[in-house]
């Protein structure tokens, strides 16, 4: 199978970016992702359920995330929930997007400094 070019996914859609970011270093189920995004953005970004699962499906199809086999301890687990984690490709895409955003912020800051003079 041909390796997908991570650069081809940029710029990332807002929802994609938030979902990938919420899966960094952790495995999450749908509700967890929704809550994490909500808290991280102080309620500014809410990914609604149907949009969330539509996006998760696309991310899985494109190979940016995958379903995790690992489950939490039995008392915390809900059998109906599925857990997701980042793939290597997803991680690369997210890094590239972060770098792109940082570069843009730097550009804005440079422009502002020029303006101040």
């Amino acid at each position, binding site marked *: 199978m041909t390796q997908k070019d991570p650069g081809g996914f940029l710029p990332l859609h807002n929802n994609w970016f938030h979902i990938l970011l919420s899966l960094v270093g952790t495995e999450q*189920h749908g509700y967890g992702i929704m809550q994490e995004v909500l808290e991280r953005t102080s309620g500014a970004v809410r990914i609604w359920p149907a*949009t969330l*699962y*539509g996006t998760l499906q696309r991310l899985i199809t494109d190979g940016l995330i995958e379903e995790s086999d690992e489950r939490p301890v039995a008392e915390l687990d809900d059998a109906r*929930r599925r857990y997701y984690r980042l793939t290597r490709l997803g991680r690369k895409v997210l890094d590239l997007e972060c770098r792109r955003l940082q570069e843009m912020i730097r550009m804005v800051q440079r422009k502002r400094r020029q303006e101040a003079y």
Partner: protein
Amino acid sequence: MNRRLHFCLTLYRRLASAYPHEFRMLYGEDLDRLGEDAVPEVWRRHGLRGLLRLLADIAVQLPVMYLREIRQDVTYALRVLAKSPGFTSVAILSLAVGIGMCCTVLSEIQPLVGPPPGVRDPARLVTFWWSTASYPYFERYRDEHQVVAAATAVLGPVPFAVAFAGDRSARAERFYGQLVSPEYFSTLGVTPAAGRFFSPETEKPGMPPVVVVSDRFWRTRLAADPYAVGRRLRLNGLMATIVGIGPKGFQGIWPGYTADLFVPATCDASVAPELTGDPLNRYDREIFRVVLRLAPGVTMPIAEATINTITRNLDREYGVPSGRDGKGRMLRLMPAGTFLYITPEQHAFVNAFNVVLWALVLSLVCVNLANLLLARGSQRRREIAIRLSVGASRPRLIRQFLTESVLLSFAGGVAGIVLAYGITRVMSSLPVPSPSPLEFNCQLDFRVLALTLAIALAAGVGFGLMPALSSARVDIGPTLKDGSQAPLRGYRRFGSRNLFVVCQMAVSLMLLVVTWFVAAGFLNTTRLDVGFETGNLILMSLDPARDGYSAERTSALVAALPDEVSRVDGVRSMTLAGSVPFASLTSDRANTRVASQTGDGSGGQVLHSAFRDFIGANYFATLGIPLLAGREFDGRDQWQDEPGPQAAVPAILNQTAARELFGGENPIGGRIREDERAYTVVGLTRDVPSGFLVTRPIATVFLPLTTEWFRKNPAARATILLRATTTRSTLASVRNRLASLHPDLTVFDVRTMREDLDRLNSFVEWQAAIYITLGMFALLLACLGLGGVTVYAVARRRKEIGIRMALGARSRQVQALVLKEGTALLMAGSVLGLGGAFAIAHAFAAFSDTLARTFAMRPNNPALVFSAPLVLAGLATLACYLPARRATEIDPMAALREE
């Protein structure tokens, strides 16, 4: 949980449950669980607005999910179709050819049977069948308001020499137009694109010449000049003002004879020589075609009865002879705006024939498509079973099949439209054989196209659904084990596929036989012996009146021409003619009534229909048609002064006319009468076929082309026929000679007789080619259908054949086993098809001359009858034989090991 939350959650679950099956299999439970968590949390944070936003999200995402699945289906279907290029190309090609042919068959006939474009409510427009009327008669018909809502008189096509500059020396071009009564445009319900049209108030005798030009003329000749209205053109040497421009697409009431100029019939005869002799006030100048718009609720028979009553009253009033039986003239009406003179019955026949042809082709295409899709469905059962076993839903599989068949139908439809468009373009660009400006403007009929496409699409969807439904009911276990050889649930030995093949064979054979009969008829026509030598025979036309010649100058010109032209080097003989033999497909028709006269002066045998032709001296010698008795016209007959009414003018009869007028007696010296004129028969010539599609020889009376005739018919054009030693150099010499002697005379339509006949031949051959292509198409589809079924049967019986061969069956026995089934289908289809074909051909032969002629040849020509079925049988057997031979190549070990 409060009621609002409960209601919201119920609604959420309902919407979530409507998500696509495969999505629900993966995320359904998660989505439900997330809803249960999110609803109270959203209520807490955002209240009612939040709940509404939550519901809106799930509702909006629902169609998105389905669209995503459809996109996947389409991508998958494209991949699947690309993997079987044979199947895909055959299906698309057969649909394309079918749709293309269907649309052409019905669109082609539209310019022939009308109605013309741009006319309001054409169904209520009628005209006289094979009959013209005088202007006073027309005025009486027009004023019969209880039956006739409006009426107009039309004379045309009429040539005009048009010069765009006012200068007299400006070179004139020839355009065709119509001389029309002022009510023309209002009767047809046509409104001007610019300026005004004619009306009885504005167009009165003695008014300055005016003209309405067509949209095409305005665009191509006036460069779409926005100030064209008010501009002046020189028409036949006189200045005329453009008062209006016709609407787009409107070219007059007769669709074939397109008109670019419309001049009121009230104009002066100097603008249009056709109007010489005050035809507007002469009851005996029956030169106008009358178009009536029937009053609401009036049917054609009622109008016919009223018109006949008025005609008989007028005949009595003017003392017009009322025919031999004394019952008076009987006029028949037909729909106006048709290319041909056709009765309502013929109109219905032409429509019915083409609709039957259309239906046959279309049903053949549909049956073939059904066969292909069914065969393919049965081959894909293992794939379906695998998809079902890994969780695909049955509706999704059905949708997948539907997507494939819709894609096929769509691709076939698009290709069909392109093909139909191409064929109609070629048809329109073919030169139509006719002495007048005939245009066969074949355009794609979009209603026909839409209907054909809809049926083809419906067939695609319907027949795509059938294998999908049966395959989706498949038992997964046995199918996975046996693959495509597992029987379908409810499969019978003579299943729907075999039924379809029998239908396909039958319909193919019907189509093949009918098209073969029509094509054979057409091709017979092209092999017709014209009856005279056509080599080195040159034709050229003159129209002195439109070059500004007076009647006297014309007479002098025509008197001098034979001598002038005969002196040119290379001219062996030369003659003049009023009409050209074989100028069109059906050029000659009865145009007079002639009676033989006995010695005592009383009337003898009355011949109602005869063709009267005016010819010059040495006509038969120039054409090379030998006279059977008597002599042909010479200079004495030609240039005599106008004889008195009792003086006998010489006439020459053809064999048919002589037989009908004089029975077995020698006609030479006999006398005949045409109205009040008497003629003495001086010669007898043999029958020469009078037209391309005219099967019977027509009784023809040849009269001398006299100076008197030119005086009486100032608008007539004459054709010079000359037999040369070499065509090209003689032609140039004659043209030079004419140009030096008569510099203001335009010589046009210069061609050889061979070219004229080739033009006719190519038109007829094109018609035949269309029918032959249709027949070939039927043949191809039949073979494909039968071949497909046999391939399928062989695949299904692979194991059985393997066992038989392992037990010692020989190749021949295996072949016979496979061929038996195909031959049975072939026989059943042939019997049905042959019966149907003869029923159709017999029914239509009653109406169609071409079909009748072929049909009449049937008893003497067994090849004609049996060639089509034999070719079909041969090719179909081959289509069975090839898979049968492949069946013998089955390796028994491999076939058995596959299990």
